[in-house]
């Protein structure tokens, strides 16, 4: 068990990680057998061993955690990270504050990534035809391919090194063809830009200047390139600290409710087809006054807009608001929308004078973005025609996530030879000849570019546990060196030496690796002029929306994205940030549509389209557009997956190249079956408890009475006055106004505090262990507010006085301490906790996990035994570490020295932790700010965690 007195271990020797019998484990065993005789108290601690380094690396001090900079790329866009390492064992991911795509924050995927490193399903050896083989054999076998027609299938990449390797391969192998595939590719956005400007471009936003934001089917607060930055800027634009502060306004038009949708001031739920029409309608209004916009375009827009006429008033109001804020608005559209819609939006931003202020255009950092190589069609054609000598699938999982009608699974066999570099024996590993285990990001050297082009480095924190290889290493093999091919470290170093030149290279290299990024490498933005003619032609061709058939929306999943995280227990257990559905995916329907169809939650529907069909359980979703059904991609994985196999249903089975995102022609049939869904939250209604649980108010009202929550920010009269405690008094403030509910904090907390996973059944039974959860509450039809709920560290804690053994009590510095090793598990504290933030170990959850999975455990936090209560500790291990550190250095603890895991991860800085006894501390200021309140204040629990009321900024025109 990984805990305080684990021996220092060299990470390179996996076999040394032997789970030794710990005292606790032993006690538990004994307790179980003799327990009731009380004998367990007299069980000696078992003997243990210490394994020191034989040669201690200079950088390591056993017991002192180190942080290393690296970066994680999703679909080619890199985000800078800092990874915590304990004696060479990465355990926790944080954002890299210096990195333009992170600013110190992280999302759920960055947080969850570290668990995948210790995924027991990871492939452990090179294989040929299912038989174990050696890397050398593979490498030599592929050294001589110069003559062959080799097709490479990669994920989209921005890596300078990889681009360089691709170039060299193209020279070395004339017949080489490169394809880039991502199921949630940005092709439509790039095509849209090409349509408008004649070349594929990425749009860069500056929301810090934006007063009005219109997001059309675009979840920019929780996904997409640089979303962490957008979320931060958006939040800064509405962080009210006084009644004079101004606040941006967000309009959202979308089908299924997204994190962005829940943050909106006005949200319009539309069927996919109506979204196109609404954009046209808005554009019509916005472009009306535009000189150089051809009148025919307006006509075309008017025709295209007809299906959205019913929303004319809404559109008019939004358009007026945008026009009233020329140069201070942003219109953004999601990658799922057709190119024409993207083009229309570009036109709107130009017409609104937003370009060069809040909106800029720049060439994508992605290699060959928008070119034919990014369309799988080419490869499919070649395979079908049998023109492929060799197929190298390096990364990704195309057989699983390619379009159903392309049927890649069958076609791969048509190649005369094939290799797949992948993380585990998954769908794609099946049909290929060679399989090479892919190195995890934290085992790899590499580079990439952030959304703005900034070059970011990835460095390994641990040697490949199972001899995994990086894409670059495999590519190098094809350059003819075979087994002599350099490792990723040498490849990267040599490449950059070549770029930088030998002089001063070592210093340059050292600093880049240390900081994880290269300064002044952002891609400059460019002036653009729009081609109105092409735009008009495109609008003319916009498809008329289908009749009122039920429209089905396929989308990337908030948790498992395109399926690459489908074997990550943390992300599967994490409740969907909006629907609160944990583990499986489900067909989301509006309540109205469900009654129309005569189905109820957990009923299983059969969806069929062109002979393919899937069975999927139904779930009523708040804010879902009537007449639409939303289904997440990325579930129903096959292959050897310890956790994710057959979790949810595979929606790719219905996804075709013709209708990749929306489809109005899918047939529904009721099966009469039921499927038990693991819903983490069952009740979303506040039952008229707003003033006790969740304050929200319109900006107008707030300005009239900024201290409208004051009466809930003061402790009620009490018999027992609070004694003055230690000089430091810990507290937290959470701003509900900027919290989007993205749930990054939840995974961060899980990673930091060894929070166990209980599985689908556990969640269904109501036994989830998350110390920090994000509650969702309904307010009106379109609003679903987020409220992070964690231990409030009450100064008059109801949990404490009911504990018979002093296992939970109060520290002098204001922490509600939970002492696991003293807990006997009466669960009285949980009953008496009005916030229900206490979690109980109904079974021994951590005993079930493999030694490999244990490696992710944080050695600074006790691993809890069966039968004990646990809860948020305000990351007390970080507090005590900081205090000890300060003590050794004989100085005081400074504000900001200590940041809880949730605070550190939060993209919008909604969570602030600190010493509330320090008048100068940020947290103190927020605690006494306007709109600060205590949840359930009248119970007299005097919580240390305070919330800032959510302020909405409705458009007076639309406000009911």
């Amino acid at each position, binding site marked *: 068990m990984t805990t305080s007195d684990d021996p220092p271990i060299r990470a390179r020797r996996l076999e040394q990680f032997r789970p030794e019998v710990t005292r606790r484990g032993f006690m538990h065993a004994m*307790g*179980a057998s003799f*327990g*009731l*005789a*009380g*004998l*367990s*108290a007299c069980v000696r601690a078992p003997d243990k061993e210490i394994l020191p380094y034989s040669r201690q690396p200079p950088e390591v001090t056993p017991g002192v955690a180190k942080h290393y900079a690296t970066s994680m790329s999703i679909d080619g866009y890199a985000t800078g990270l800092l990874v915590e390492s304990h004696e060479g064992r990465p355990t926790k991911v944080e954002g890299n504050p210096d990195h333009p795509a992170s600013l110190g924050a992280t999302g759920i995927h960055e947080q969850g990534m570290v668990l995948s490193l210790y995924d027991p399903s990871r492939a452990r050896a090179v294989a040929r035809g299912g038989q174990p083989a050696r890397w050398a054999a593979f490498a030599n076998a592929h050294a001589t391919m110069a003559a062959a027609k080799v097709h490479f299938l990669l994920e989209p990449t921005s890596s300078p090194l990889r681009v360089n390797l691709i170039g060299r391969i193209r020279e070395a192998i004339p017949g080489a063809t490169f394809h880039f595939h991502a199921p949630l590719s940005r092709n439509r956005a790039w095509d849209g830009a090409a349509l408008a400007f004649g070349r594929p471009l990425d749009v860069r936003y500056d929301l810090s200047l934006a007063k009005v934001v219109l997001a059309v089917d675009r979840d920019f607060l929780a996904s997409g390139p640089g979303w962490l930055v957008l979320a931060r800027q958006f939040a800064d634009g509405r962080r009210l600290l006084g009644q004079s502060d101004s606040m941006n306004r967000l309009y959202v038009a979308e089908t299924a409710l997204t994190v962005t949708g829940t943050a909106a001031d006005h949200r319009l739920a539309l069927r996919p087809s109506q979204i196109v029409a609404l954009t046209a309608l808005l554009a019509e209004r916005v472009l009306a006054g535009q000189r150089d916009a051809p009148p025919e375009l307006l006509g075309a827009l008017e025709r295209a807009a007809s299906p959205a006429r019913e929303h004319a008033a809404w559109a008019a109001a939004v358009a007026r608001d945008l026009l009233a804020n020329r140069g201070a608005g942003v219109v953004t559209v999601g990658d799922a929308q057709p190119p024409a819609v993207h083009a229309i939006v570009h036109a709107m931003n130009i017409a609104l004078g937003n370009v060069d202020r809040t909106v800029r255009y720049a060439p994508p950092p992605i290699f060959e973005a928008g070119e034919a190589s990014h369309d799988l069609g080419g490869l499919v054609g070649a395979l079908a025609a049998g023109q492929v000598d060799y197929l190298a699938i390096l990364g990704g999982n195309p057989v699983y996530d390619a379009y159903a009608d392309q049927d890649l699974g069958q076609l791969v066999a048509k190649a005369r030879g094939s290799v797949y570099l992948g993380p585990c024996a998954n769908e794609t590993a099946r049909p290929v000849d060679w399989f090479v285990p892919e190195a995890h990001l934290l085992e790899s050297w590499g580079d990439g570019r952030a959304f703005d082009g900034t070059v970011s480095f990835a460095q390994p924190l641990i040697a490949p546990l199972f001899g995994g290889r990086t894409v670059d290493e495999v590519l190098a093999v094809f350059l003819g060196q075979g087994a002599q091919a350099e490792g990723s470290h040498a490849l990267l170093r040599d490449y950059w030496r070549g770029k930088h030149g030998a002089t001063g290279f070592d210093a340059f290299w050292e600093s880049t690796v240390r900081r994880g990024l290269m300064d002044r490498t952002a891609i400059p933005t460019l002036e653009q002029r729009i081609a109105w003619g092409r735009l008009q032609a495109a609008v003319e061709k916009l498809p008329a929306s289908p009749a009122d058939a039920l429209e089905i929306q396929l989308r990337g999943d908030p948790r498992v994205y395109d399926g690459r995280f489908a074997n990550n227990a943390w992300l599967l257990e994490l409740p969907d940030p909006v629907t609160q559905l944990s583990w499986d995916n489900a067909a989301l329907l509006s309540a109205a549509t469900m009654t129309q169809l005569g189905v109820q939650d957990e009923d299983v529907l059969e969806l069929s389209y062109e002979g393919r069909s899937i069975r999927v359980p139904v779930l009523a979703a708040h804010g879902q557009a009537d007449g639409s059904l939303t289904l997440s991609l990325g579930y129903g994985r096959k292959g050897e997956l310890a956790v994710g196999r057959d979790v949810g249903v595979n929606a790719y089975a219905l996804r075709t190249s013709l209708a990749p995102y929306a489809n109005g022609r899918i047939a529904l049939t009721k099966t009469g079956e039921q499927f038990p869904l693991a819903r983490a*939250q*069952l*009740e*979303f*209604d*506040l*039952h*008229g*408890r707003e003033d*006790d*649980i969740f304050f929200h108010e319109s900006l107008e009202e707030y300005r009239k009475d900024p201290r409208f929550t004051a009466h809930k920010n003061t402790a009620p009269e009490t018999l027992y006055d609070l004694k003055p405690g230690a000089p430091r008094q810990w507290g937290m403030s959470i701003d509900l106004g900027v919290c989007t509910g993205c749930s990054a904090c939840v995974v961060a907390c899980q990673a930091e505090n060894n929070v166990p996973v209980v599985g689908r059944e556990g969640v269904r*039974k*109501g036994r989830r262990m998350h110390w920090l*959860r994000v*509650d*969702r*509450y309904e307010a009106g039809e379109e609003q679903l507010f987020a*409220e992070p*709920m964690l231990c409030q560290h009450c100064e008059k804690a109801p949990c404490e*006085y*009911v*504990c*018979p*053994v*002093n296992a939970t009590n109060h520290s002098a510095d204001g922490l509600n301490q939970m002492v696991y090793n*003293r*807990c*006997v*598990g*009466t*669960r*009285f504290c*949980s*009953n*008496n906790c*009005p*916030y*229900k933030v*206490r*979690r*109980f*170990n*109904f*079974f021994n959850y951590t005993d079930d996990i493999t030694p490999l999975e244990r490696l992710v455990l944080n050695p600074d936090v006790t691993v809890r*035994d*069966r*039968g*004990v*209560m646990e809860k948020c500790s305000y990351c007390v291990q970080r507090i005590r570490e900081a205090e000890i550190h300060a003590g050794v250095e004989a100085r005081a603890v400074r504000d900001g020295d200590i940041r809880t895991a949730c605070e550190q991860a939060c993209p919008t800085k909604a969570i602030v932790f600190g010493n509330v006894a320090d008048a100068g501390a940020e947290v103190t200021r927020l605690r006494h700010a306007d709109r600060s309140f205590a949840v*359930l204040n009248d*119970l007299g629990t005097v919580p240390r965690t305070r919330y800032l009321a959510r302020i909405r900024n409705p458009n007076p025109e639309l406000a009911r």
Partner: protein
Amino acid sequence: MTAAVPVQGIREDDRPDVVLIGRPGDRELTAQLVGAVLSPPPWINKVLLVTGFVTLILFAAVTYTVLTGIGVWGNNIPVAWAFAITNFVWWIGIGHAGTFISAFLLLLEQKWRTSINRFAEAMTLFAVVQAGLFPVLHLGRPWFFYWLIPYPSTMDVWPQFRSSLPWDVVAVSTYFTVSLLFWYLGCIPDLATVRDMAPEKWRRRVYGFFALGWRGTARTWSRYRIAYGILGGLATPLVISVHSIVSMDFAIAQLPGWHSIIFPPYFVAGALFSGFAMVLTLLIPIRRLYRLENVITTAHLDLMAKMILLTGSIVAYSYTVEIFLAWYSGDVFERWMHLHSRIQGPLAATFWIVVFCNVLTPQVLWFKRWRTSPRLLFVVTIFVQLGMWMERFMLIVTSEAQDFLPSSWRTYRPSAIDMTILFGTMGFFLFLFFLLIKYVPFIPIAELKETRFKIEEETRGGPVMGP
């Protein structure tokens, strides 16, 4: 010479106010009562076999729970307490009638106490044994139960006495000890009687061993009477205190539906209610099977039924007051609990079962004809016990299921193990109970003789009026 004073006047069997029918002489009376022990009916062994088997099943379920963790139950967060604590409160409640009858009625010098007190006290002891199982079993780590006891540990840490759980530990163990002493003290003279009456030597030895060498000298008797009186005087407030403390397991918490000032009296009434019911449930068949109609007469049934009616009415009143206070307080959480959650929430069924069993059923006891009909009475008592179990379940679970933050609301479904343990304890209880009536004179012989003597003193001959 030893013949009883001749019975004269009208037949007494149909006089529901007679607590002892006929004037059996010392010997007959002793013979009848000791007979139950010296030559027990054959069927009792079968009963012991069956109940013993159920007991084994209970032990199996308990072991499984301890080894695997209480995840094998249906509990969750928010419903962290459910069956275990419900069973605990139910059993401890049942355990209240016994001591109440023997102690309280002793102080009031009620003659009708005599025939049933031994019986009721035994029932108390065995009910408390069942109850005592749960506070330990429901712990996440039962093998550390002793941390609730203040002993000097190497950790220098102590129990936390502001919590009601240490109160429970002390209250329940005190209650068990005192009830045991009270019961055993009452047994001693009768054990001596059996010792002296038993034909076989081994029986004399065994009963002699437990009779502690009793010889009814006048001096011993006088000390005995005082000690017995003192124990009665101590046990009476004890009974009240114990269930008051049990009720504080909920009342000191702040959950809507738990945080209520009327809980102590409300719980005590409920306890006696179910306790009297249990006494009757056992009494009626035993009385029939052992042909004890002459010592356990219709009068006893009638009076017990009246007690049930009384305590039942107090319970019904408490329900009303609870709901009224919730409404009157205007507190949003209390109101939701009492006006929505309980009566129409996911577990509303339990509430209505409670109303039917605890409020409506006892109303039939307003009529003497029904009070004195053993069969009907038996049915009523069964309903009352079902109702009282459901009441505790409702109080505990509904309050947890829908407390302050709707986001954490959840309902509860018991697991198979939950059920096994509940019914297992019933089997265990009956096993111990029949073990008792097989080996111990379950109707106090000496006291009955005393009563009979008193009756003779009061009225030479003639039928004797009960209290």
